[in-house]
């Protein structure tokens, strides 16, 4: 009797703790996730903003329209291009930096660590101002530098071929510090004597990297790969502030197309596209778990 009364009391108190979050979470997260799914199967438009229930169900029409739309296909291809290049580049660079910083040969490790992490905390809008100047074709630092070497640099952001690589470099610059910090912490968790023992056995740095570092770091690498992959699939901010998806859609992305269709008032189509992106995020994360999970 007293036990159950006590339990009920902690149950009530516990809900007291959980309530503020739960209410806000339900209203501003669960309801939108559910209504996004609902909207994806309706012909909702901007005009229905105030009457979201007075719309028609259209089955899978929005999904069919999205998948057969050449603009969406181009955006999907661009997104895969971005993820396929930027993700391995970011992870490889982060791993390289982390290994170098952990090697014991570095003089001012914390200075480097702070310096490589600094771009992570900066606003993308501010970063865009700086990078648009760096990549400015006539007097920007990059082309001026190339000019000294006698190279005539391209018009980075307005060239169909070079716009995406420019954004890939920029995104890598901005995100590499995050994975580097996490990988560095993972490396510091590997006992020194494992390396010393293998050095006595004559294992060189390359061998050590392949036989000790990579296998022991696998869970950390997996974490970084999943987080980076989820973030990069939602590629949006860089083209939004740098190229507006251009030139000729060369840097348009799935997330950007979701935003565009929202802007055009095609809410149903926009929601369907966002769910396609959601599925892609889940699939990519699943594949990474399969590829990188700890071997039993």
């Amino acid at each position: 009797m007293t036990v159950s009364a006590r339990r009920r009391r902690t149950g009530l108190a516990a809900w007291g703790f959980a309530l503020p979050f739960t209410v806000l979470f339900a209203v501003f997260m669960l309801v939108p996730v559910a209504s996004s799914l609902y909207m994806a199967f309706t012909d909702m438009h901007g005009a229905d903003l105030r009457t979201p229930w007075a719309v028609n169900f259209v089955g899978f029409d929005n999904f069919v329209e999205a998948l057969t739309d050449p603009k969406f296909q181009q955006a999907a291809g661009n997104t895969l291009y971005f993820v396929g290049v930027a993700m391995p580049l970011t992870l490889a660079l982060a791993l390289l930096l982390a290994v170098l910083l952990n090697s014991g040969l570095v003089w001012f490790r914390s200075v480097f660590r702070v310096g490589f992490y600094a771009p992570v905390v900066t606003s993308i809008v501010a970063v865009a101002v700086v990078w648009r100047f760096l990549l400015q074709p006539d007097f920007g630092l990059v082309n001026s530098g190339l000019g000294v070497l006698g190279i005539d640099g391209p018009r980075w952001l307005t060239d169909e071929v070079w716009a995406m690589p420019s954004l890939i470099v920029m995104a890598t610059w901005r995100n590499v510090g995050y994975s580097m910090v996490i990988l560095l912490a993972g490396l510091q968790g590997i006992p020194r004597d494992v390396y010393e023992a293998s050095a006595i056995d004559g294992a060189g740095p390359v061998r050590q990297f392949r036989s000790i570092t990579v296998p022991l770091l696998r869970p950390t690498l997996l974490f970084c790969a999943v987080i980076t992959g989820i973030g990069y699939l939602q590629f949006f901010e860089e083209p939004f502030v740098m190229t507006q998806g251009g030139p000729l859609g060369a840097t348009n992305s799935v997330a950007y197309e979701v935003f565009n269709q929202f802007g055009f008032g095609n809410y149903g189509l926009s929601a369907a596209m966002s769910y396609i992106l959601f599925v892609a995020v889940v699939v990519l994360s699943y594949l990474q778990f399969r590829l990188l999970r700890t071997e039993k």
Partner: protein
Amino acid sequence: MSGDMMAAGTRTTGVRTGAPRAAQAAPGESPRRRRLTPRSTVLNVALLIGLAASIGPLIWMVVSSVEPEGEIRQFPPTLIPDQVTWSNYTELFASLNFPRYFLNSVVVALIVTVGSVLFSAMVGYALAKLDFPGKRTLFALVMGTLMVPGMVTFVPLFVLVANLDLVNTYAALVLPFLAAPFGVFLMRQFMLDVPDELLDAARVDGAGEFRTFFRIVLPQARPALATLGILTFLGSWNNFLWPLVAVQSADKYTLPVALALYSTGQNTVQYGLLVAGATVIVLPILIVFLVLQRHIVQGVSTTGLK
């Protein structure tokens, strides 16, 4: 993780027994111990070049913001300006209400930070240490939403906020960010490590659940609160897509919104003004980051490892 280590440990032992004698006889090179070798010099110079690439653009931004337009475009760029001028800032503040946007950014970020960290800590504590009906469902839902792309909720959130008549209000900038699934996950992980004995002792002393939470649990969780607080503040400060859509009148703009609209709405590009605006957004954050970098870096790496 530890299982892995064991496995690799065994593997290394295997290598040792199988290694040819010659390799063992060779004098054990350990450049690791020495500091000023050609190798370490090359390595450090390479890293310095990388560091320049990493923070160079940010340094350029700060330096350019106090230079006249002509000097900004000089090549090679000047590290120390020939002529320091504040005209970029005065001109920017004259044409745009930057102090107002700054205040908006600070107030929104502070409310979001305090509110979401407190709510996350409360629900994280309940999920970690208390029993209540619906606990498993709530935790599953929180974890499930961690992977939902922001774009999925973006459109319906706008529809919702419009129907609640919250468009163009501060509430629209704050409310959707008070419930942070990642924060709940982080706080729950941390609360699991708070010793039960401590809570039991407080209860035996007659402290109620809320008193126990605010007097015992929260002080224990200070490192986690600091980490989550800093990350939340950064996220709110740098957030720009939602504020861009949710508010329309200039008096509600946050800094990134104002700069984004200003930089795209200009016909003639005045880099001086843009760079000054960018510096106003980034410099306070960089200073906070430099002061608290140990917290941030450690926090990020532990959240990543858990």
